[in-house]
């Protein structure tokens, strides 16, 4: 029961960061390996504002979101769009964007190390809270609630508004989207920027209960990747289920076997999905 609850709480933020990568990969078609660094930047901002100005990470998230949005928009517009325009095929674009963002991830790590080379240690709402007869850390509960709120809002926007439907249309087919008059480059830039903002907000939330440091981003990139591949690219409901599975498995392994093995467990799931259900849990075969 304890494992179930902490696993569920963890999966809330996992689902949110997977949504961020899904917008970047599923809609804008950029496999962004620097996604985890964007998350760590969000965590760094939260740490910084908390230690320097005693600002709540939740307020920092409000500032970080528009900053990350603008930053990611500029990245897409000036670094990635030339690759998109040049690529003759989706495969070519994937190779180019993986290389470009892999390099970018090192650059971002370097910048963050130069700003703060140590652990982003701070304590926010680190107090016990009783829920369903169990005790959980209040910061985990708050992060979960905020993540669910943002993720739910995003899901509603994507599925129930006209502009959100246009974003999904681009994710289904860029060619068909252009043929109904959607400016694919503009929508892709927007989706990439939104994905970056969601990821950064996820980072500020995670930093309240996991101590981050500059070079830990790659782990979160992998977790987000596992979730969207398990859930099926572009499938939001699949990503939520996958996030819950990953959260539960990690928590179980950490508490029953050894905390050091959580990444191993995540990687085993990843391999199993790649081998047996590459189209995702609910995906259809192409």
């Amino acid at each position, binding site marked *: 029961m304890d494992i179930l609850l902490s696993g569920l709480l963890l999966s809330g933020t996992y689902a949110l960061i997977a949504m961020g990568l899904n917008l970047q990969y599923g809609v804008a078609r950029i496999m962004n390996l620097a996604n985890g660094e964007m998350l760590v930047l969000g965590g760094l901002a939260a740490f910084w504002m908390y230690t320097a100005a005693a600002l709540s990470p939740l307020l920092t998230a409000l500032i970080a979101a528009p900053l990350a949005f603008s930053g990611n928009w500029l990245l897409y517009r000036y670094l990635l769009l030339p690759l998109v325009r040049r690529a003759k095929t989706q495969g070519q674009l994937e190779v180019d964007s993986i290389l470009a963002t892999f390099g970018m991830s090192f650059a971002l790590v370097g910048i963050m190390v130069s700003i703060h080379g140590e652990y982003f240690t701070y304590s926010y709402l680190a107090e016990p809270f009783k829920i369903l007869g169990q005790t959980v850390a209040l910061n985990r509960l708050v992060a979960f609630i905020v993540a669910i709120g943002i993720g739910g809002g995003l899901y509603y926007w994507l599925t129930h508004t006209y502009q959100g439907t246009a974003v999904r*249309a681009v994710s289904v*087919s860029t*060619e068909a989207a252009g*043929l109904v008059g959607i400016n694919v480059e503009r929508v892709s830039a927007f989706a990439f920027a939104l994905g970056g903002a969601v990821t950064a907000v996820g980072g500020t939330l995670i930093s309240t209960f996991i101590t981050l440091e500059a070079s830990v981003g790659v782990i979160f990139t992998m977790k987000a990747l596992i979730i969207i591949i398990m859930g099926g690219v572009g499938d939001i409901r699949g990503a939520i289920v996958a996030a819950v599975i990953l959260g539960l498995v990690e928590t179980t392994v950490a508490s029953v076997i050894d905390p050091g093995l959580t990444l191993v467990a995540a990687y085993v799931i990843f391999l199993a999905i790649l081998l047996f259900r590459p189209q995702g849990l609910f995906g259809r075969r192409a």
Partner: protein
Amino acid sequence: MLTIENLSVSYGLHRALAGVSLTVNPGEIVVMLGANGAGKSTLLRAVAGICEGGATGHIDISGKDLLSRKSDEIVEAGIAFVPEGRGIFGDLTVWENLMLGAYSKRAQRAKDKNLKWVLELFPKLIERKDQIARTMSGGEQQMVAIGRAMMANPEVLMLDEPSLGLSPLLCQELFGNLSHIRETGMGVLLVEQNAKQSLAIADRGYLIENGEITGENNAQAMLNDPAVQAAYLGAGAAKD
């Protein structure tokens, strides 16, 4: 009115279209006949702005220059395109497909009128509106594709092989529906393998071979032209 003058398209060294000129007037159905690889699809894709090759020449619709513009700008200028294989959003519902068809500014102005028209032409789409498009039959998907293109409020509607993969009965229904579209004043540019049925509803036709226009006439004359009959209507059709 769609005017194409001296349009050439090359994929690298391969020349797919060589100096093609044609026009489509309002309310007119124009059919383009040609063998596989003659350049029919390239022509439509170049006009729609989704052709990977390099294009030269002149394309305009009612005075607006279209050559090498992006596909969304071309929709805004007044051209809707149903590509081969239909190009609908398979993961979205029928209703979402139709609504997205009216995404451009020119389409938003006339959305209600066009929706009424589409649902009159394809009443089946009303009962299927919440169905995911890819789970429908080929004929129903073709209705979604054509309906979505009509929602774009185009001056000219272009269709690439719309009868492909449809049963003879559905083909008949499709061509019947296409002949009704003309009543809206829309021009239709149709690329077809099914020469007999498409010429039967068309006003004019063009023949295209190896990337060049080799013949142009009104549809009735083409149906009766022995050369056309031999090449595109099969030997049996000549005796009809």
